[in-house]
């Protein structure tokens, strides 16, 4: 057997109060696609940050052996030189710059002291061909969708002669087509001699692409499974990840929908002065007490815009249309009004506009409902800690304490904090925008269970989701959105993946 291209031996990394990695060993053969899976907070991202030098040599204990040599990376720069490239879930492109400028950012092609733009442009076009991205390299990155931006990131990595490519949840924000594209690109790269480590919570895609899978749990390596030996299956993965079996990740519930229509939206139109076009056209929908409705559709179909336009319109769209709450016509001029009226909106982009990363868990959880823990406008910080602890326990948020800064939590646990924040508002209508993006199976199950509990208590939930199994598994009724219009409504009994997809793409 050939020696592995990468071997990480007995890696231990501690943060104050948390042992994120505990004696982890991880080894990758040349030219394989190696998936890394595990629950939120298992230590996947941390392991990759150790590997890529974000946590420099000396910050961790253990050895990194890459291409037969012990490496002592002092920063990302060193690991890049060695041929390791990492692509984070949060893209690191400069939106205001063009694609070709971005691809060679940091290692510009020079002629003397000047940048050789002609050569840059030519090479950029080659790189784009390699990643099968058919765009003009002179467009600005901000004008591309996330899927294409992701490919630009990969082109950027390839332009540096990468030998080992690390992708941390690359498909979390992509739709099915884009994901499929990306996966087939990874397979191509493998043929060209690029080894790849992929972190993902989407087990289906792991099963379809992995040569090997390593499972982490609580900062420890549980096992490495070999696909060629037929060891990789969904049940085996789940069992190793969460340590127990989950046979149906969509927990059963009695669909007892109430009679009362709690929210009805009629003739809803929105125009965005920023992109200068209509983004929502003639939307009608309603939701009953105790009901879960889903807005299905492709990314970019206008579902987030719909949610925000209803939720007090913070983006300043020009809106026409009516909202009826329990039969009474209402208008919200700000999110504050919407919250007062009993709405809550868990955003899809938790880092961008969901959480305040520099503040701690408790401050984030109480932010939208400070009045509840204040008397005469003075916040009772002791009660606050108790409230936060309640949600930490009930949502199973993994954190050493509620005084931990949210930026230090793993992605999935940040999502739970975001959910906790809006549950504390105690809304009648909860809007969940991609509620399980980046969340592990175990936590998904927990969130679905919580959703079921909430509707049983009479809450109504609007779920925006691009994952069809989730839509089919959780909702009572489905609205399909495409290009800012509702193109169909299906009761759960009549809904199938095919029907939804065809309505979503028409």
């Amino acid at each position, binding site marked *: 057997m050939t020696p592995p291209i990468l071997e990480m031996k007995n890696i231990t990394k501690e943060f104050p109060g948390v042992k994120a990695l505990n004696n982890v060993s991880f080894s990758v053969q040349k030219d394989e696609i190696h998936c890394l899976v595990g629950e939120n907070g298992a230590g996947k991202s941390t392991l990759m940050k150790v590997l890529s030098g974000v946590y420099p040599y000396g910050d961790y204990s253990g050895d990194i052996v890459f291409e037969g040599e012990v490496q002592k990376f002092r920063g990302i720069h060193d690991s890049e030189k060695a041929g390791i490239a990492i692509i984070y879930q949060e893209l690191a492109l400069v939106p205001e710059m063009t694609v070709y400028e971005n691809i060679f950012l940091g290692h510009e092609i020079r002629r003397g002291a000047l940048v050789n733009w002609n050569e840059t442009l030519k090479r950029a076009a080659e790189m784009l061909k390699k990643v099968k991205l058919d765009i003009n390299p002179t467009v600005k990155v901000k004008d591309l969708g996330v899927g294409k931006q992701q490919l630009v990131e990969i082109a950027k990595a390839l332009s540096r002669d990468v030998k080992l490519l690390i992708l941390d949840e690359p498909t979390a924000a992509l739709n099915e087509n884009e994901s499929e594209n990306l996966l087939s690109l990874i397979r191509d790269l493998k043929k060209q001699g690029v080894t790849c480590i992929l972190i993902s919570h989407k087990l289906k895609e792991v099963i379809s692409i992995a040569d090997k899978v390593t499972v982490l749990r609580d900062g420890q390596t549980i096992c490495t499974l070999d696909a060629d030996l037929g060891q990789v299956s969904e049940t085996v993965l789940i069992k190793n990840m969460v340590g127990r079996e989950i046979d149906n990740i969509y927990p059963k519930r009695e669909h007892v929908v109430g009679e009362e229509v709690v929210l009805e939206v009629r003739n809803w139109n929105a125009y965005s002065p920023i992109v200068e076009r209509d983004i929502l056209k003639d939307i009608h929908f309603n939701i009953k007490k105790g009901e879960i409705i889903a807005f299905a559709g492709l990314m970019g179909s206008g579902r987030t815009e719909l949610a925000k336009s209803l*939720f007090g319109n913070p983006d300043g769209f020009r809106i026409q249309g009516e909202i009826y709450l329990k039969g009474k016509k209402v208008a919200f001029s700000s*999110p504050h009004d919407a919250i007062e009226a009993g709405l809550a909106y868990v955003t899809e982009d938790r880092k961008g*506009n*969901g959480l305040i990363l*520099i503040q701690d868990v408790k*401050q984030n959880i109480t932010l939208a409902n400070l009045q509840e823990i204040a008397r005469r406008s003075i*916040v009772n910080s002791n009660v606050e800690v108790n409230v936060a602890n309640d949600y930490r326990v009930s949502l199973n948020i993994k954190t050493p304490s509620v005084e931990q800064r949210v930026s230090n939590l793993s992605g999935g646990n940040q999502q739970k904090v975001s959910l906790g924040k809006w549950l504390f508002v105690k809304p009648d209508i909860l809007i969940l925008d991609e509620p399980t993006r980046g969340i592990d199976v175990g936590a998904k199950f927990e969130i679905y269970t919580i959703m079921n509990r909430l509707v049983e208590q009479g809450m109504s939930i609007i779920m925006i989701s691009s994952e069809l199994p989730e839509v089919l598994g959780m909702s009572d009724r489905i609205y399909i959105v495409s290009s800012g219009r509702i193109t169909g409504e299906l009761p759960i009994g009549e809904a199938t993946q095919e029907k939804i997809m065809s309505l979503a793409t028409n």
Partner: protein
Amino acid sequence: MGLFKNASTVLRANIREYGMYIALFVIMAIFTILTDGVFMSSRNISNLLNQTGYIAVLAVGMTLVIVIRHIDLSVGFLAGFLGAIAAIAMVFWKLPVIVVIPLVLALGVVAGLITALPVAKMGIPSFVASLAGWLIYRGAILLVTESTGTIVVPNQTFNDIGNGFIPDLPVAMRIPGLHTLTLIVGLLAIIFYIVNEIRSRRTKQAYNFEVLSMDMFILKLVIISALVGYLTWVLAGYQGLSWTLVIVLVVVAVYHFITTQTVLGRHIYAVGGNPEAAELSGISVPRIILITFGSMGFLSALSGILFTARLQSATMTAGSLFELDAIAAAYVGGVSAAGGVGKVVGSLLGAVVMLSLTSGMNLMNIGIAYQYVVRGLVLALAVIFDVATRRKSK
């Protein structure tokens, strides 16, 4: 020794928080040695704190402005302009002090709101909006003082704000050589502090939260009480508490309370931490901008009053560079330009640090040119220290 070891762990864990105090202590100690003790004399400390007054109140307001990711460059000349208005109101319009002060403070709030309006409603960068204010108020000072030149304020009550001291007890009840009322105020402050700390520790324990260990807790109480006690004693050795210091302490106490304990304070820090998330959480970002700049205007007016009273006159150049001193004090005190981080008490200390440097170097007859260089270096060091320790705690 166990106690010492405990203390040093607590200290190391909170180096960022206590760094300011240590820096101040070191600076004071150095000057005290270099000036043979003159620096720590009652008279010098009293003067130093009085001089800090008009910058300290600006620094407090500026802290909040920077916390919400904005800046206000207009505060210096606004203070100068409003100081001139106060002088004119007393000298030419013959208005009584009791009317002039609220009037000027109200004008300050209005001025702050005017700066904030285009920022809050239209998204104009505050740097630009307040730079416009800087020019306008600079012009306005010249306009109102053009015909008269320096306006001398003859009103004793008004001037006492900048130069006077709180009265003492009747002679019969005094301790000879010491300002007795000041001592009593200091003592009350210490008692208030201790009672408060014990109460808060008890509540925390009732909630089963972690608290400092008993010996650490007592150590903390002793150190802080000793510091307050010493300062009181030093001040009592001269003429006691000045009105300026009283005003500054009240302002800092009120702002400290608002920022740490109230819903409004939380909202301000949330807007600074992530304005979009704050907006979606039901907080009106424009409203917070208006409130913060309104408070900045109010404090600019107060600064103008303190400065005019201190000089006993309004001059054509009043307010020059105040804004930069205030910004420097805030940064030395630990605010972050990235938003959402910074404490008003830190900024007060920052102002005291900067003024100590000036005062100490003056006593040593160091030229003004070197003074600028030294203050610049200290500003740079303070911010580097802050960023470095912050990175570590991440």
